[in-house]
């Protein structure tokens, strides 16, 4: 009985505080980003075509592949054909990734 009364009093208190804040809180100001007097015509996430996001991620993945190729390019001349074979094996594995992205439509532009 005492617990129920305590819980009820707590809930009423919280509801009362919410009502007071609804009455007293200032209204949000209707400003927006500066578009030379226009308001945004689309959702903020729709502002750029999704192709940019997909290409960004694909670029990042293959940029990490390029990170491995830069030092390889410096030493491949003195290491010889073994290094060439190994790097082409690495590139063949990454080519599988390229084919996957291609089939999934990540490289589609329109």
């Amino acid at each position, binding site marked *: 009985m005492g617990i129920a009364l305590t819980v009820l009093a707590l809930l009423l208190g919280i509801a009362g505080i919410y009502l007071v804040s609804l009455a007293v809180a200032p209204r949000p100001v*209707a*400003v*927006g980003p*500066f578009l*030379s*007097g*226009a*308001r945004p015509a689309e959702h903020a996430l729709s502002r750029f075509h999704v192709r940019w996001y997909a290409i960004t991620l694909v670029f990042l993945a293959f940029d990490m592949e390029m990170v491995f190729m830069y030092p390889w390019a410096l030493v491949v001349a003195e290491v010889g054909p073994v290094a060439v074979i190994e790097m082409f094996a690495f590139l063949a594995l990454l080519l599988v990734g390229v084919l996957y992205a291609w089939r999934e439509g990540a490289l589609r532009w329109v």
Partner: protein
Amino acid sequence: MGLSAWLLRYAAGRPRVLVVCGAYGTPYRLRVEAELRRRGWLEARSPAEASLLAVCGRPGAELAAAIEVVWADMAVPRARV
């Protein structure tokens, strides 16, 4: 101690001006820009940092609507010329 008031007066004496040019407004815009250079005031790049809105010439219907949006985006204290 009057520091806030002093800072407000200092800022109010050097407002950033947002210049809008409508039809036949080029001579007025040039005079406004010369006056800004003479006083050492800067141009605002957006309504959020502007304190003064200077409308040169005669804005058409579309430009007038855009000016109202920009005026609403400007924070007080602000003035319109």
